[in-house]
């Protein structure tokens, strides 16, 4: 796949030579013992690599060539929205790189304006009343949102009885993990034959012991919950709060809003829906928007617009407190703001529609090549396929690497065996989707004829299948000098 320039990149530590120096350090005469006292000094220096700057640059540049990203490769990872990250967003963030969080408010009016405006845009897009931008990631937003729900029930004197959070069996793993971290018990609700939440089963679970329901809509099968209004109405009648996991908002951005569906709290993934880079696994941002009745519980501080300018509101006695230091991942917020300003309302709507169009088109191409779609309803921005009978999703994924594609999410959602969860996003061209489908067709044909070939894939990547059993039984988590 074009990145096999080097069979092996040594560790940076193995490139180290005693006495070699990298980027020149500042010179200010200082006596450590005088500054800190002998007893406080480190005896042995940390074994950091001693390399010159070119060696460091070449090392990490070559490492990057053993890595694929959206910039190099079609990356249809389901529920992750691996869309193009316009590079102008990086330039936007650099304009705000030198601000310190403890500056005087009067000296931060531009930054506070930007946060306030972004909050207004996100409230408009979700149909909510109040927002915090503090959470640092989607899962962090989930925790924040569930702590807000918890504080709401506690304030009403109902927390003791409302111990349960209902989560569909198709939910992201972070939903039950978050509920547990927020001090709740988790109960799973089954999906029905169409892949939507089994509404009758859910209604049977409702009651004054339930604190909240966490839902993704469209769900992880890519299906919009068509009975959502009945669902939220029934839940509200039982005093239950509705939590919207925003992982899949890209499908409906500008077309429909969680607030109008009846959700009380929403988290957004700016690194998915709003095109900020995923960074190899963060940093992202996970703002949380709520309806008015939950606003008193949001974390402090909130940005407030006053006639005298923007200010930070710390005086919020019912707040859950802080979930992160300072104001969250501000640099990511700048990028999301920039993305929304580039596209505008019509651009965002069209992005959503094209993400659905791409996914629907690709689904049909795959079905014609023998791939099965067990919940083949009107899927939206993503769909869940299965390889042809007898083939394993893992093997197909590995073979895709040899074809020059990043595989989809596999073995998720858990309710589909050999699941391949495919989300192409709106920024991929028709011919890319067709080439991907062709590759999957070739893999299916050859895999059925020659199972050993398929089990052995990949063949052309910098390393082949790795021994994960060994990594788990005898993990080697750091280099040691020897």
């Amino acid at each position: 796949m074009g990145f096999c320039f080097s069979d092996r990149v040594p560790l940076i530590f193995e490139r180290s030579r005693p006495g070699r120096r990298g980027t020149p350090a500042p010179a200010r005469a200082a006596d450590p013992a005088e500054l800190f006292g002998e007893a406080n000094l480190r005896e042995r220096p940390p074994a950091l690599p001693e390399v010159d700057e070119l060696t460091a640059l070449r090392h990490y540049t070559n490492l990057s060539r053993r890595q694929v990203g959206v910039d190099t490769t079609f990356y249809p990872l389901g529920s992750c929205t691996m869309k193009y990250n316009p590079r102008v967003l990086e330039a936007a963030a650099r304009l705000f790189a030198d601000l310190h969080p403890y500056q005087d408010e009067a000296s931060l009016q531009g930054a506070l304006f930007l946060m306030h405006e972004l909050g207004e845009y996100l409230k408009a897009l979700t149909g909510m009343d109040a927002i915090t931008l503090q959470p640092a990631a989607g899962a962090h937003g989930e925790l924040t949102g569930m702590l807000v729900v918890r504080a709401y029930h506690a304030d009403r004197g109902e927390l003791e009885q409302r111990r349960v959070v209902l989560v569909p069996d198709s939910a992201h793993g972070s939903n039950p993990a978050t509920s547990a971290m927020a001090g709740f018990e988790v109960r799973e609700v089954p999906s029905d034959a169409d892949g939507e939440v089994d509404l009758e089963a859910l209604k049977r679970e409702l009651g004054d012991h339930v604190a909240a329901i966490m839902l993704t809509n469209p769900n992880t099968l890519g299906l919009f919950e068509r009975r959502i209004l009945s669902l939220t109405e029934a839940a509200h009648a039982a005093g239950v709060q509705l939590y919207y996991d925003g992982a899949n908002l890209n499908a409906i951005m500008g077309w429909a809003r969680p607030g109008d569906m009846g959700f009380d709290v929403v988290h957004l993934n700016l690194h998915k829906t709003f095109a900020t880079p995923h960074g190899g696994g963060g940093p992202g941002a996970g703002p949380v928007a709520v309806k008015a009745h939950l606003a008193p519980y949001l974390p402090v501080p909130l940005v407030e617009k006053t006639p005298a300018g923007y200010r930070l509101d710390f005086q919020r006695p019912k707040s859950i407190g802080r979930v992160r230091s300072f104001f969250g991942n501000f640099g990511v917020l700048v990028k999301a703001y920039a993305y929304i300003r580039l596209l505008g309302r019509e651009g965002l709507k069209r992005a959503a529609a094209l993400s659905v169009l791409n996914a629907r088109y690709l689904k049909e191409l795959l079905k014609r090549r023998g791939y099965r779609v067990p919940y083949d309803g009107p899927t939206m921005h993503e769909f869940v396929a299965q390889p042809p009978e007898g083939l394993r999703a893992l093997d197909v994924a590995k073979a895709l690497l040899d074809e020059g594609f990043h595989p989809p999410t596999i073995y998720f959602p858990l309710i589909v065996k050999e699941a391949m969860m495919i989300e192409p996003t709106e920024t991929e061209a028709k011919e890319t989707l067709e080439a991907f489908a062709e590759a999957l067709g070739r893999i299916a044909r050859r895999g059925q004829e020659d199972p050993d070939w398929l089990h052995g894939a990949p063949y052309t990547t910098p390393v082949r299948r790795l021994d994960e059993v060994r990594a788990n039984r005898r993990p080697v988590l750091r280099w040691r000098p020897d």
Partner: protein
Amino acid sequence: MPYAPHTEAEVRAMLADLGLERLEELYAHLPADLLDPPIELPEPMNEDALLRHLAEVAARNRPGRVFLGGGVRDHFVPAIVDTVAGRGEFLTAYTPYQPEASQGVLQAIFEYQTMIAELTALDVANASLYDGASALAEGVLLALRATRRMRAMVSRGVHPEYRQVLATYLNAVGADLEEVPLEGDRTPAFAVADDVGAVVVQSPNFLGAIEAYAPLAEAAHAAGALLVVVADPLSLAVLRPPGEQGADVAVGEGQPLGNPMSLGGPHFGYIAVREGLLRQLPGRLVSMTEDAEGRRGFVLALSAREQHIRRAKARSNITTNAQNAALRATVHLAALGPEGLKGVALATAAAARRLYQLLLEAGGVRPLTRPPFFAEFALRLPKDPAEVRSLLAEAGYHGAYPIPEYGEGAALFAASERMTEDDLLAFARAFFVAVGG
């Protein structure tokens, strides 16, 4: 729309393939009441107009030399950090679930884990967490899990915002949190009851002071508790590391390693532990292993701890780390090396000490922090620190963060290796005017 490749003809052809004519039909199955909500957003802009608009917004911030701290400071970032971290392969990848296509990120994480373990003198570090505050919360939750206790004690020398985040997390699981007041600028010796699972101290503490916490480690261990130490990673280039002073868990804010201040984020938090606590660690871990042909490679390991496998029984709900920020630290540490990092740390501390001496010459200013300190220190000012901060900002300097929790007139200052003698003198002159005027 911008950035989507579809021509109108292609949209029509793709719709036709689905038996549709218009994009709106893709939403026809949604409840009609939900469709086309009124959403007010500004008109779209092109890239040039966007950058001009943002430059105008940025100009509403008042620029100035930064003498503020709280764990985030104005350190120099070598140019190769931006070059590497901005490479699209690193910037636009996601979780390395497909190791064959992700050796770049995985090996970089392995190197990062090693560097953090070295800096802290502990056995193992994870791939990073969101920030210093959430890293502390995760570190304390880890200690409570390991000891099966539900009570933590934290020194008020720990960053106030970290304590607030810790309180939020512990409240959620119903654990108790007790704060220990400082004596002057440092944590006093205190008794640890035998139902306490975690004792937390920060060194250099929020006031900059270097704490002698080895006795506290003994007290904690005697009570069966674990010691969690918050440490500025830059300070560990020269100061005795947590692992050599009895810490079981070390956490901290990574910004001083190669990340711009950026109003406090995105940055990363680090966490490192003793070997015996490995399986309690939250978040991602990368292990070295071999491929089918015996070549060295790297994979995510021990993921049975994590949410996508364990769901409600996971160690934490954390899903990502803060990889691009941690990568910046990795490249920063590689570029500087042990001697370079030590040079930055010493120059920072020397500049802070010089600034301390200069500012104490102002009338009515008294020390709150006593040496030895590292990069930050607190003073008692003879007038409202908020007003001093505001006057300094008008003069082109950001300094004097008000910290009323530590007494009337208390304000925090910081320096870094970037400040020359002239910079320090100029800031001191502005400070004299601000506190005297």
